[in-house]
């Protein structure tokens, strides 16, 4: 079987080779009352893998708040969904595809996008936007990381552009700890009338199980358990056959087909096939519906001849969906599928009782009580232990401490984590579907009009370095920064999705990071009243050199009542006043400057005045909505100086500012501070710090740089590192 790595002792029991522990296998024997068949063993190995079962995180995730007045679908469905008014809903989710992308970045990233798209249209929503959060090793030092970045971006563009869903935002970070374990997190939003939202629970004994979409081949056999639950080591080249290959053209047809089936009310339930393919899709559908399922695998249309039953059940061939259809509707379903050139094959039926049976020409090759496969998977408690010392190496210093502040600012502007991502986002189509009101670099969040005059906003944010300093505060900061991005365009958060990217949770220090980070996320969500409607966990992101920085990534969707008033980040008019808004108390620890100075990863992150933070977010949001603020930009990496420089570059105009002596220009406090501009009378009540105008950014007594020089540093930083002509 493809899951056996060469050199490993073939005397190891098969269940061990498939990634099950002795304890888990004993549990299977006990619950079944017998030994599992080979097909059943393969099914258990995937359903009970970390990637599918969330063994180490499920208990922890219950801490996250998931209810709220706008929530329509919460965690547990293919995607979460919130009400956005006018009878419309936005379904959204973020998912990781880290391990496949480290092996084959183009297809790994592409199929990551494909997978999250399917999760969204599986609940009946038309995908209207994609965002991606990417993390790699240092581009200046690692050719491999430059290669991964270029290929992952090409893969995301290939899939998203081809299927006609705009990529409207994202983030990219570079840290040496991601060198062996890149992070590819893809987020998708979809739009649906409430009436079209559908759940995945199978129902109605006698109803027909229909498989839609691509042929089933050997893609990703064993992928879920082999790749996602094991730390990457040597010899992962032979894991390449496990990587899935995506086809956006097939998915485009599948998408249109599914939406037409739903509009015609022809389906009882719908589920996409992702990790663990037919096994997990059928098991989840049966489990949620508290029914049984019979699957006749000889009916499954195959791409390759002679596939074994277990291969058919765990294949991760892309672009497939499973649906339940009432018998009298099957003909209509097949007709819609034919019109959209989408293969549709009845492969089984819903049964009363609670067994998932896999038949091969009528002969059972698997017969499992659904609850044993889905619910009886053991969950593990983490054993967190706070590390005494920092566990991440410091970066090589680029600045040494004596430089003038002009040089510090230019170095930050061209640094890989701050400089413009234009080279990347120009490879994505941000406008298809004609909803995009704010494109990348126009504002802090993407804004998409809904057609009734209102709009939704979305941003995706995370920061591994700061979470490594203090997981609880760092994770909370990710939520505050994301919400701040939404405030800058005038949007109020409605719901949050998160992807938790961490190392090996069986190691106590990582367990501590994970536990603290989830607590921080929960606290921040409670403080802002934002429910978590779904998400994803990616563990075991670890190399022999150690775990990745603990990296919770959050995506928040919000709403603004009037699309015309959506905010922008650039200064616009000479004479506008500039103000600093919020409980902004910047600190050096965990900042980009600290990284460039080669500081160790650690230190105390600033505490947050929650009441003042909420007030500041509201003030900025209201100011943008009312049209009082010409621009709004939250202060993030690089601190106030970088935020001001970004506003100048975006607007093509300078600014003159006066700050109190000794003000920390480069310290950070994510989510707590905003730079806004507007007519002086509109900014009454804020702390005015200067005025828009001229051709330079000038902070009195501190620094003066021409906008063109700042722009050159900002625009050429990343391209220069990637050795592209700038």
């Amino acid at each position, binding site marked *: 079987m493809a899951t056996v790595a060469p050199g490993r002792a073939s005397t190891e029991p098969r269940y061990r080779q498939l990634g099950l522990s002795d304890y888990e296998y004993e549990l299977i024997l006990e619950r079944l009352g017998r030994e599992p068949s080979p097909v059943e063993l393969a099914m258990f190995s995937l359903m009970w893998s970390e990637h599918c079962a969330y063994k180490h995180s499920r208990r922890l995730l219950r801490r996250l708040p998931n209810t709220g007045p706008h929530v329509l679908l919460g965690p547990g469905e293919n995607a979460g969904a919130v009400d956005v008014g006018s009878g419309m809903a936005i379904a959204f989710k973020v998912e990781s595809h880290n391990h496949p992308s480290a092996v084959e970045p183009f297809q790994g990233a592409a199929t990551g996008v494909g997978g999250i798209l399917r999760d969204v249209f599986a609940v009946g929503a038309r995908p209207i936007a994609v965002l991606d959060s990417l993390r790699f090793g240092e581009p200046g030092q690692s050719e491999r990381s430059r290669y991964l970045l270029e290929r992952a971006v*090409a893969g995301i*563009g*290939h899939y998203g*552009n*081809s*299927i*006609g869903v705009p990529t409207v935002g994202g983030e990219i970070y570079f840290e040496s700890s991601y060198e062996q374990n890149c992070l590819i997190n893809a987020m998708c939003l979809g739009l649906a009338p409430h009436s079209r939202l559908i759940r995945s629970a199978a129902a109605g004994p006698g109803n027909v199980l229909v498989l839609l979409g691509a042929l089933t081949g050997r893609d990703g056999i064993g992928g879920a358990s082999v790749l996602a639950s094991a730390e990457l080591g040597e010899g992962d080249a032979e894991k390449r056959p496990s990587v899935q290959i995506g*086809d*956006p*053209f*097939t998915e*485009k*047809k599948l998408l249109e087909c599914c939406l037409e089936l739903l509009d015609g009310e022809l389906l009882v339930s719908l589920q996409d096939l992702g990790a663990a393919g037919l096994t997990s899709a059928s098991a989840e559908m049966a489990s949620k519906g508290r029914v049984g399922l019979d699957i006749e695998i000889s009916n499954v249309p195959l791409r390759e001849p002679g596939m074994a039953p277990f291969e058919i059940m765990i294949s991760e061939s892309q672009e497939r969906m499973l649906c339940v259809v009432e018998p009298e509707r099957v003909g209509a379903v097949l007709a819609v599928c034919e019109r*959209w*050139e989408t293969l549709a094959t009845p492969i089984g039926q819903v049964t009363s009782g609670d067994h998932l049976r896999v038949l091969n020409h009528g002969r059972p090759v698997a017969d499992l009580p659904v609850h044993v496969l889905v619910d009886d998977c053991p969950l593990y408690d983490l054993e967190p232990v706070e590390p005494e010392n920092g566990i991440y190496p410091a970066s090589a210093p680029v600045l040494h401490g004596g430089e003038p502040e002009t040089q510090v600012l230019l170095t930050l502007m061209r640094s890989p984590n701050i400089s413009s991502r234009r080279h990347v*986002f*120009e*490879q*994505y*189509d*941000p*406008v*298809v*579907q*004609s*909803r*995009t*009101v704010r494109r990348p670099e126009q504002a802090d969040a993407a804004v998409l*009009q809904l057609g009734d005059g209102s709009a939704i906003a979305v941003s995706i944010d995370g920061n591994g370095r700061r979470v490594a300093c203090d997981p609880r505060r760092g994770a909370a900061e990710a939520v505050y920064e994301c919400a701040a991005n939404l405030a800058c365009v005038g949007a109020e958060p409605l719901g949050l999705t998160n992807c938790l990217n961490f190392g090996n949770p069986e190691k106590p220090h990582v367990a501590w990071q994970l536990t603290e980070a989830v607590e921080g996320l929960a606290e921040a969500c409670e403080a802002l009243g934002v429910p978590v409607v779904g998400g994803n966990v990616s563990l075991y992101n670890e190399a022999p050199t150690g775990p990745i920085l603990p990296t919770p990534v959050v995506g928040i969707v919000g709403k603004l009542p009037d*699309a*015309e008033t959506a905010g922008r980040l650039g200064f616009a008019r000479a004479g506008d006043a500039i103000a600093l808004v919020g409980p902004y108390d910047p600190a050096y620890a965990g900042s980009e400057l600290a990284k460039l100075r080669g500081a160790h990863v650690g230190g105390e992150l600033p505490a947050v005045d929650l009441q003042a933070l909420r007030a500041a977010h509201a003030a900025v949001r209201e100011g943008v909505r009312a049209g009082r603020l010409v621009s709004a930009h939250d202060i993030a990496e690089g601190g106030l100086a970088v935020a001001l420089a970004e506003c100048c570059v975006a607007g093509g105009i300078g600014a003159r500012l006066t700050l109190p002596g000794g003000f920390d220009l480069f310290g950070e406090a994510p989510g707590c501070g905003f730079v806004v501009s507007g007519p002086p009378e509109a900014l009454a009540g804020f702390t005015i710090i200067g005025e828009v105008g001229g051709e330079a950014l000038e902070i009195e007594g501190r620094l003066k740089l021409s906008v063109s020089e700042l722009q050159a540093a900002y625009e050429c930083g990343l391209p220069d590192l990637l050795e592209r002509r700038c």
Partner: protein
Amino acid sequence: MKVGVIRFPGSCDDIDAQQAAARVGEAVLLWHRERDLQGVDAVIVPGGFSYGDYLRAGAIARFAPVMESVAEFASDGGLVFGICNGFQVLCEAHLLPGALLANTSLRFVFRQVELEVVRNDNPFTATCEPGERLSIPVKHTTGRFYAPDDQLDALEQRGQVVLRYAPGNNPNGSVRDIAGVCNEARNVFGLMPHPEHAVDALTGSTDGLKLLQSIAAHARQPAAAA
């Protein structure tokens, strides 16, 4: 005026084109398998990735049943407007000269570019002035216009080069900065930029509207092309 927007499997900007065209008249979708053009005054072949761009962009779409009707419609003088993938389809169908090749950068590029109107003696740029600049976005991987030199000379001489990328704005290496061309009879037109994404100030520029308004104005006149 009634516009028909073709829908192939894989078309992406079909609904966008329909919505944009609805600003200047009635706009319907024409399914690729249907030969009935529903009496439209103009046909738009939209952007996207018809048939996954398999083999060559537009190579398979050009043989769709609806394209037989479009070819007839064009030879009868009907207006045909190809955008991006639509331009590729029309070149493959030999309704327009030249071919579209991979961008010199070999990467997909989205960019708001400035176009220069070369001439307005056709139904597609009639509401523009020669030399006028239009701000319209491009988004493609295979947008480099090519024709052999002798054919290019003939195109220019016959007034078939309608739009060029303004200096410094060529995003894909198109020869002679050519962004849009028409056929000799001036009733079939193709361009790589997307005017349907430049019709609403809320989402970008409105310069693309001028092309649609030109078609609408032409459709309202008594028949007979230039």
